[in-house]
């Protein structure tokens, strides 16, 4: 199991592997997979965009994280045209905030969707918004993505294998 912490990014082709982010609040977990090659990558995005920051961590900003996910997946043998994405997170846990930083969650979700659209990667399933924190797991071998809220049950959000494509769509708020 690989834990992907805030601002980090990981990729795996090991069937026994799980990529996991614990406690996504306003952050977004973005999984990019190539099912045919069993490549899965996961980034833990914290903010919408990097304003010309040198040496920014690969996973931290939506606008840098998506190209980094594509590059890492390709490096592990994925084909760009086969990449598919699943998004989890972007909650607004607090009504309060400092300065004009309200609802970073929604802005993160928007920025991630735009970056994926720009990279021509289809979003197969997403669970974003709402008010609750979430834990996301990408099971590399099974090519499934599961989501769990605090005190809740682990639920399968997407299954990319085997058989025909299924997709789930659950957008709160």
């Amino acid at each position: 199991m690989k834990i992907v912490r805030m601002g980090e990014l990981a990729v795996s082709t090991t069937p026994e592997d799980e990529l996991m982010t614990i406690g996504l609040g306003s952050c977004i977990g973005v999984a990019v997979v190539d099912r045919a090659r069993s490549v899965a990558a996961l980034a833990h995005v914290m903010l919408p965009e990097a304003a010309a920051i040198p040496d920014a961590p690969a996973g931290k900003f939506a606008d840098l994280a998506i190209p980094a996910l594509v590059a890492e997946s390709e490096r592990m043998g994925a084909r760009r045209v086969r990449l598919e994405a699943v998004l989890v997170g972007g909650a607004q846990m607090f009504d309060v905030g400092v300065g004009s930083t309200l609802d970073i969650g929604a802005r993160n979700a928007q920025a991630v969707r735009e970056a994926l659209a720009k990279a021509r990667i289809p979003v197969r399933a997403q669970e974003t918004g709402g008010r609750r924190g979430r834990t996301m797991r990408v099971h590399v071998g099974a090519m499934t993505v599961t989501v769990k809220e605090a005190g809740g049950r682990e639920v399968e959000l997407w299954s990319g294998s085997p058989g025909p494509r299924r997709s789930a769509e659950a957008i709160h708020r």
Partner: protein
Amino acid sequence: MSTDYTDMQLDAMRELANIGSGNAATALASMLGREVELSVPRALALPLADAVDAVGPADRTVSSVVLPIFGDIDALVLLLFPTEDAATLCGLLGVEAGTEVGDSAIGEIGNILGTSYINALASMAGLAIEPKPPHVVTDMLGAIVASLLSQTVGETDSALVLDTGLDVADAACSLSFLLLPTTGGIEEILGRLGVGGA
């Protein structure tokens, strides 16, 4: 803007947390009519992901109260109660945990303690600051801390977290107090304490 702090600067921040939470402990003690003990405060200057981990296990469910601070500095005061301890505290106050009344009691405790904390901080550092109303959320610790850090640190890759624990005597009830200043807020505080400039 530098995010590396000298030992003297971290000591000054620790002392600030000590005085703030000392004041909050006194308020809690008089509210409950029990003794309240204070842990040694920590001033953690860490990369973001490490800062989230340092607060506690990311998947632990906790009750939290957040008070945004505005004025000369912007910051968030965060009180964290392990869920069982929040229930104990509600019991001591004669209200039922997990209900609307219980949540509002936790919010009010957070408000009183948070306000005592920042009053001490304001007078020590000579800052004009005020709290906004508290907000109560029960959720995963990691999600709470990460969401708040995204608001305070912005593009900076490290965070300064001031962390103190309060223990209520004979009640197996503890809570922790975190101050999450914005990066600009930290510079301002250090300047006011006479240890500014990295």
